[in-house]
């Protein structure tokens, strides 16, 4: 069934199809539509789940942690300042190895107050132990939320699906909605081995002394490593089931490319046009869409970028005092390759500013025309 849905409602439909049993959230623009729609579904009975209202995002994540610990598939969504307020509980969800799925609609952090697209909010949660995936269109929103439960429950790690404020959250696109039966075939019911069970009382998340902490954390890191395969595998299975395969990354025309553009989220779409135009003009240009950010797909990135001489990274984010975060992560993934490509870092589109094909063409031409990248990131689309 195809429907024209805004990105937020694509997420809501995916949650419904995933038979989530517990939802807790606190409203924040531009995420609110997701949980509004879910509360309607809970209200009219089309989704058999408890919807728990809370007084803050911290409590939203805390109660989702509790529900998931009790063995229930759960969901929440947030953005920007709300996500920041969850920070402590994000660590808790991952450290407790709870397969929670949440949507973060990428929005800039204040001040100045800004409700528009910017990846700074979720990238600031990089080290909380969550799997992070960045998606490009509304269909991928729906598909990725369903895959997220599959991934999360196999490796027992929480998954955060991230997409751009307004460019996806509030924009309507045709979305193919799979049948419930098909999703049920793809995603089995959640049956955790260990959960909070009054019949078998245990202390959950107690003190761990120095003699064991490190091993437990090593297991967490290993789970991320395992997740690389699971994400690949899940994307492939999803393709088999629904005709839309996904991977850790999407590499387009990378095999013969001299220069490869690296993007994430909605900036990928205009970059596809720029790539086509440059190719028509005889430039061997490729595109690498970074769908997965954590775990960082080092091998996939090396495979895609290893053969080219220049990499151009567009970041809708900035690590203040360092530069584009994807660019930085790429560099560390490439640094030990023989003949490692040069990495050109561009920052564009912060706080919801449009990143047009013209902007991207400008970055591509600058990359093609310049032998050595500058030390820092180059800001594009700025007032002169």
């Amino acid at each position: 069934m195809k429907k024209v849905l805004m990105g937020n409602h694509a997420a809501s439909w995916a949650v419904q199809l995933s038979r989530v049993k517990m939802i807790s959230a606190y409203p924040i623009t531009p995420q609110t539509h997701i949980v509004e729609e879910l509360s309607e579904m809970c209200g009219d009975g089309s989704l058999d789940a408890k919807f728990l209202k809370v007084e803050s995002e911290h409590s939203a994540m805390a109660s989702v942690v509790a529900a998931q610990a009790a063995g229930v598939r759960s969901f929440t969504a947030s953005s920007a300042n709300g996500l920041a307020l969850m920070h402590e509980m994000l660590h808790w969800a991952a450290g407790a190895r709870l397969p929670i799925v949440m949507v973060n609609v990428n929005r800039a952090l204040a001040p100045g107050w800004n409700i528009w697209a910017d990846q700074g909010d979720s990238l600031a949660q990089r080290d909380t132990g969550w799997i992070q995936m960045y998606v490009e269109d509304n269909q991928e929103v729906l598909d990725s939320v369903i895959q997220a439960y599959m991934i999360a429950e196999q490796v027992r790690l929480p998954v955060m699906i991230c997409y751009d404020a307004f460019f996806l959250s509030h924009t309507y696109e045709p979305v193919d909605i799979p049948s419930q039966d098909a999703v049920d075939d793809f995603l089995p019911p959640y049956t955790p081995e260990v959960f909070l069970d009054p019949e078998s009382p245990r202390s959950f998340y107690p003190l761990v002394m120095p003699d064991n902490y490190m091993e437990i954390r090593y297991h967490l890191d290993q789970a991320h490593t395992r997740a690389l395969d699971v994400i690949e595998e899940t994307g492939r299975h999803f393709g088999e089931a629904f005709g839309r395969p996904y991977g850790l990354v999407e590499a387009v025309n990378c095999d013969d490319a001299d220069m490869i553009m690296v993007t994430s989220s909605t900036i990928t779409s205009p970059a596809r046009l720029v790539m086509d135009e440059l190719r028509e003009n005889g430039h061997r240009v490729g595109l690498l869409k970074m769908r997965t950010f954590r775990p960082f797909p080092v091998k996939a990135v090396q495979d895609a970028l290893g053969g080219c001489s220049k990499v151009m990274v567009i970041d809708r984010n900035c690590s203040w005092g360092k530069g584009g975060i994807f660019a930085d992560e790429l560099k560390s993934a490439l640094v030990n390759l023989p003949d490692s490509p040069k990495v050109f870092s561009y920052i564009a589109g912060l706080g919801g500013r449009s990143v047009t094909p013209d902007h991207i063409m400008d970055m591509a031409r600058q990359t093609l025309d310049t032998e050595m990248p500058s030390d820092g990131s180059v800001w594009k689309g700025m007032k002169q």
Partner: protein
Amino acid sequence: MSHRETIGYETLDQVPDTVISQGTMLWNRTGSWRYLKPVYRQMTPPCNNGCPAGNNIEGMIRLAEAGKYSDALRLLKEENPLTAVCGRVCFHPCETACNRKEIDAAISIHAVERAVSEHGREGYAPHPVLSASGKTVAVVGSGPAGLSCAWHLARLGHRVVVFEKADKPGGILRYGIPAYRLPKDVLDRDIADIEALGVEIRCNTAVGKDLPWSSLEGYDAVFIGIGCHQPRPLFEGGEETEAVWDALRYLTLTAKGDFPAGNGKTTIVIGGGNSAIDAARTARRLGNAVTVYYHRTRTEMPAFGEEILEAEKEGVAFEFLAKPLDLVIDNRKLRGVRFLKTQLGEPDESGRRKPVPVNGSEFVVNADIVVTAIGDALDRSVLPESLDCDTWKIKTAKMGATGADMIFAGGDAACGDHNIAEAIGSGKASACAIDSKLSGFDIGAARDVITIGSTDRISASRYIMARTGETTGPLSKKVADYDKLNTAYFTRGDRPEQPHLPVQERLAGFDEVAGSLSLKAIQGETERCCHCGVCTACDNCLVFCPDVSVIKRADGTGYDIDLDYCKGCGICVNECPRAAMAMEEDK
């Protein structure tokens, strides 16, 4: 102690990846971190502390809440035989003390006591008495003090003879308090409980008149509770006229059915106390137009506010700042009263502002009947001359001991505070004092065990336990004041209004004005009670203890603290809603 039952992991794979307990932490005796420990304690609830009769009010409410009305009645009668009476006419200082007034409104304790007295009759057996002592005590006067004294003496195994000058027992309860406040069958019921313990009441026997004091010499002890019934003339002359009445005489005649003059007469009542209001409301029922004159203002009136409001509803008018001068009598017939206007001056020794006459402000109010209610004095003419007394009272030491050997006194005749609960408390104190003399029990040594809260009032049940050698710890001298409660646990509720007879029906006779609350309303009131200072086994301590160190006793008598693991964090104490726990130094 040094044995650590830890789970040891040798290899990386053995360490689980989920942070969930795989063993116990029992090896970690966190009690060693403690320097303070929680203890359970009983504090005295403010209601109990505020009851002049020494009732265990909180205990009554707890039993009533559980539907155990006869047990509640038995508990009340441990301290006070006149429960049905007090549920109606005590001015309930317990409610003034009730912490609930800081949250919503005081518990309607009097209504609960009234309900317990009604619904507790079924299953109520006469109280047990100690084995006969062979001693006999004479009680002179069968008012609340005498009846209380007789009851407790009888419970302590003594033979008691009560001498009453009137034809029926009860004193002020029967002849002073009008039937619309205290129906006489209610009084009879409480008195019957006293007689059921073998107390003999000899009516129509005025000691000091019909019977000389010397005839009581054969008794082992005497208690005098004759009240204050000597009228004080307000006016010089004129009081012989049949139109001028002392309030107590007016009320007594009405109670006996010998109704004083009525039917549309203009009646003036002079005074501001409860007797004035009783007389005024009685006069309204006799068909008179009634105005109360008081020389101060409403604020200074000693009468209970509720009584004043009900009087107003019944059509009693009030005039303030008017001091009576003399009667206006024309040809031996009362025409009215001459008053002088007053204004309020500086506070007097009672803290109330003094009325100061305004010169040249005389005025005359026409009246057919005048009732004076200015407080009666002690009738010294009927007392043995050996007693040391003044106009108002027999001088007594603690617990009613007079200067004379084995003669005690209580109630209005010996106390400054003229009210029923004080009289009941004083009769009880004297009963215990008399018993200690007769039995040789050292009451002084038992004071901590038998006195209630911060007061020196006696608990008779505790006295009996102490006297019979039952081990009892001291009663807490500390009162569980409002600021000691954790009020987060008390939700607001409503205090139910007692039903009242419509005014037209009231004025047609002497039917009881205030009705009983429904059992549902009583249940609500008992549930509203905070049980200040008393553990109700609500489990809050147990629920909140982060160390699972609060252990509930299987027999339901409370909790124990597992000191091996209690860290002394104090959360249980903080979360106790009713201050029934405290932290103390752990030595």
